[in-house]
């Protein structure tokens, strides 16, 4: 439902965090869409994703999956899921997808004030919006802000609080580099929407007390 919607962070932190999902509507227009989805994969790789995967393939580019794996395994009912670490790249992909006119549904998760204008500049008229109204209920059982900024980058909740805390501690103790820790954090998210560049920034800014 909300896979890429509830990413936490300030406006400034979210300026370099966009998730793209391209999907056929199963039962409506999915037949014969494999080639169109492969074209999307080509466009995404031409621009350069921060992360990408295919559930149909073996995982993400951070667990050894390649562009060829993704293209080979995708099928008519498949989805392209990926993320970008700059507004410019996201806009470039949207523009190229508009030019390709593949008839697939495109959703972009990111700052509303950035995504809507970039979609319009590409000639799209945004159709539907899914707003995040925050986290409620027994919020006393949640971890701290920095940990949540990391864990909510996996929309299925597979990046564990304990793993985020462990990686903050490893980085702060000098036992792991930012790159090593960010890639470790990305691995449980096999949809490929965990933004490794942003994770590095969060790890850099985190204090060891954020791991408590």
């Amino acid at each position, binding site marked *: 439902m909300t896979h890429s919607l509830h990413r936490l962070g300030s406006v400034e932190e979210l300026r370099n965090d966009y998730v793209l999902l391209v999907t056929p509507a199963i039962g409506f227009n999915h037949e014969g869409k494999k080639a169109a989805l492969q074209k999307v994969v080509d466009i995404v790789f031409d621009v350069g994703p921060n992360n990408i995967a295919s559930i149909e393939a073996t995982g993400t580019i951070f667990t050894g999956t390649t562009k060829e794996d993704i293209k080979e395994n995708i099928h008519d009912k498949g989805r392209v899921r990926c993320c970008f670490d700059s507004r410019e790249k996201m806009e470039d992909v949207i523009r190229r997808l508009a030019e390709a006119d593949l008839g697939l549904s495109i959703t972009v998760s990111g700052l509303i004030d950035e995504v809507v204008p970039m979609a319009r500049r590409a000639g799209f008229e945004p159709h*539907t919006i*899914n*707003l995040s109204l925050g986290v409620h*209920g027994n919020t006393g059982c949640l971890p701290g802000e920095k940990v*949540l900024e990391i864990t909510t980058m996996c929309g299925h909740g597979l990046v*564990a609080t*304990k793993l985020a805390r462990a990686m903050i501690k490893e980085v702060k103790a000098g036992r792991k580099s930012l790159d090593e820790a960010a890639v470790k954090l990305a691995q449980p998210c096999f949809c490929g929407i965990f933004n490794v560049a942003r994770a590095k920034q969060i790890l850099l800014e985190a204090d060891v007390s954020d791991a408590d």
Partner: protein
Amino acid sequence: MRIDDNVCTGCWECVPYCPVGAILPEDGVVRVDEEQCVECGTCLRTAPCPSGAIYEPDEVYRWPRSVRKVFSDPKAVHKETNVPGRGTEECKTNDVTGRVKRGRVSVAVELGRPGVGTDFYDVERVSTALAQLGVRFEPCNPLTSLMEDTSTGRIRDDVKGERVLSAIVEVETSIGNLRPVLETVRRVSGELRTVFSLDLISRFDPDGSIPVLPILKEMGLEPRPNAKINLGAGRPLCTE
């Protein structure tokens, strides 16, 4: 999930990978707290177990434990919807399917998210409260198939104790009914043992505005600055 304690070397490498903290050190090895485990499969897929001690027993796929698997492991596809993940399309293909039309909204209460998990007792607290407002539970959401009766929102007794990473109570209603729906969610939120993430889907108006924003403002609810936006690229395009 299980860990074979005859094989486990007690390195504890897998412990931090469990999203619900169900892998616990014990007597020099580790074990899985089966009550807390949601069968998401993360430890088996990702944790670097040097001895291959983590395994998935057949029971995971037997009812009602199988509910944990399909609601927690995005690789598991729901039989009811053919959709992986938590099992619903929400706004991803609304430009083609027209599931949420102008003048209508979809409200989703994702219990257990982020990172806490939930049982179905908490889910039922929300679903039974919303059922009283005459909303329509999304038929393509697999949670709806666990309801005894969608007019009451009651969940089947045999699954209530199962724990999942998250489950989404998803309702569709008119914009006019949005305020009572959100007020009800607010009221029930204080009764829950878990957390929930709340989202609201609507069409853009023809002038590009978002019709629900004035209602949210009146209620003192401020949406986050980031959202998920369907660009309207799908064909054939639903204009309703």
